């Protein structure tokens, strides 16, 4: 499905999770080279130390053997698991989120059929302008409140069950993503699966910023999906903003008012009880 979407947007293929194989392979070669150097240098030191007698020779030989051992026993980073490698050398960011909404696919597809409607559905999409021919200009709020503006190409399949987008050629950073609607099991409605991807371009500083903000991006996306579900299922977004609350500073009357009830207060409680 991912590859199909990328084909729709006319992009080159890339591995969304493991990072660039070219860069990773280069790093791996470099690490293997380091291991060989350790082994070679250690071997030479060992030989040199063994030729010398006394305590000094023993120390040099011992150091050499340590380096040989390190060269032989150190594992490739590839063997540490793909997570480590991806974190260090990833050249793209991918976030997947999904939510289930108690509506039909047709109802949701209808809501999502106009990219301009994203502005009311998703709080982090600030504005979208239709440039014609499937091209749009959009403003989204990124992590830390950063405003990101891009021209994007949007593709929607015939039934409206898959919407994909990708920044246009020449944009300073390559964003892409898709929304896929799938029937949920039983009577639970529709699963909405959203994927957002960011691909590093050579010389691009933005991915470093975004890479560190991946968690924030995931939370932004989760917030938007919750908001979409709330709007679809109950017609509004529950809020507590603007509700009343106390205004005194904490500790204004001391740290705590807790105390054993006094006789007067017990009388007071009896008086209140008498209201019955």
């Amino acid at each position: 499905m991912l590859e199909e979407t990328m084909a729709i947007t006319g992009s080159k293929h890339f591995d969304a999770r493991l990072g660039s194989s070219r860069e990773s392979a280069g790093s791996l070669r470099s690490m293997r080279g380091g291991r060989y150097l350790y082994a070679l240098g250690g071997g030479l030191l060992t030989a040199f130390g063994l030729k010398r007698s006394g305590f000094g020779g023993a120390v040099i030989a011992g150091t050499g053997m340590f380096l040989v051992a390190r060269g032989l026993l150190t594992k490739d980073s590839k063997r540490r698991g793909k997570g480590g490698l991806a974190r260090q050398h990833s050249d793209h960011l991918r976030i997947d989120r999904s939510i289930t909404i108690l509506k039909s696919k047709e109802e949701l597809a209808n809501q999502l059929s106009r990219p301009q409607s994203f502005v009311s559905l998703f709080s982090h999409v600030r504005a979208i302008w239709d440039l014609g021919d499937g091209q749009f200009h959009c403003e989204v709020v990124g992590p830390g409140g950063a405003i990101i503006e891009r021209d994007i190409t949007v593709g929607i399949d015939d039934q409206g069950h898959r919407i994909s987008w990708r920044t246009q050629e020449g944009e300073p950073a390559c964003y892409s993503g898709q929304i896929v609607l799938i029937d949920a099991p039983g009577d639970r409605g529709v699963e909405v699966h959203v994927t957002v991807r960011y691909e590093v371009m050579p010389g691009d500083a933005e991915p470093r910023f975004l890479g560190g903000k991946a968690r924030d991006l995931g939370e932004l996306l989760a917030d938007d999906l919750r908001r979409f579900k709330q709007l679809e299922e109950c017609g509004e977004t529950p809020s507590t903003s603007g509700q009343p609350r106390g205004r005194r500073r904490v500790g204004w009357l001391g740290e705590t008012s807790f105390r054993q009830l006094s006789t007067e207060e017990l009388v007071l409680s009896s008086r209140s009880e008498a209201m019955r």
Partner: protein
Amino acid sequence: MKALCWYGKRDVRIEEVAEPTIINPRDAIVAVSSAGICGSDLQIWNGRTPSMRAGDILGHEFMGEVVEIGPEVHKVQRGDRVVVPYPISCGGCWHCKREEWSLCDNTNPNAWMAEKLFGYSPAAIYGSSHVLGGYAGGQAQYVRVPFADVGCLKIERDLDDEQVLLLADTLPTAYMAVEQAGIQPDDSVLVWGAGPIGQLAVSCARLFEPRVLIAIDTVPLRLQMARDYGGAQVIDESLGRKAVREVIEELTGGRGPSVVIAAASIESNGHGVGPRLEEHENGFETGLPSTLWDAIRACQKGGRVSIPGSYVSSVEKIPLGAAASKSLSFKMGHAHVHRYMRPLLERIEKGELDSSFVVTHKMVLSDAPVAYELFRQVDGCVKVLLEP
């Protein structure tokens, strides 16, 4: 308006705050006529509930008169006298459609916070922590009621507040605890803890006509209430662990009760039968509430344990070995109040059920800080109603 605001552990104050306004089209504003203090309010007061913020208005059990409605509210009108269920439910999500109202997907504006703590967010609750939405509560003169069409139960007959207020929380909570235990006529039912929920659990269990109905507590007044109003056989927990065990066995033919309703929250005094609740510096509970420990031990092999008591954060040292070895079944959860309000109101109107007897104190809202201390410290205080 006057409202009871939380400022810290055992520190609540009456303050003048702004009156609530309509925020969303499905909101209503209710002028509160009565508000109850619940055991879970006591947990908040005692600093055991995470994510409270200074200035939060307390109270999730309230009723009153609708004084303003949003443009999308159609089922209630200004002037209607209503009881408001404590879970805030949207009415449109999958759980609401299945009448699992306390599991509503949509009403918690801080769902992200609840997801971190619980995995998934339940419905929001008035006057509770920010994990559960941070909505202003009803221990105030006015309160905003979101999704008023879904939540408000109109009271159209001439019934006193104390007869119907507990439909907002305590009575449906007790009824659900009984219903989900699946009581049959041959069952022996033990209600451990005879506070407000325990008392009403006894009354509700009586409706299912179990063979044996037992209530346990340490407070003589509460035991007397369970005997007089619920027709239960009562055991004084102060007798000590061994004696309590012997009486239970005597009343159940040596088998133990087939249903145990653990009706005490973590604020219960738990007089020394099980391990005691300890308190961390951060206010979270550790150890094990003795009631739950006792409930698990007392329950018959293959029996059912129903837990209406309020637990917010983690509880350690649950005796799963005993539960597993005896093949116990557990049911628990926040009550799906909306599901039970109308049928229970009908029972109240017919005189089949009365919850007003648990109300031992009525106080004016201005006395609310004292009321909390009274509720905690005075054995004879079972339920306090606040009147703004």
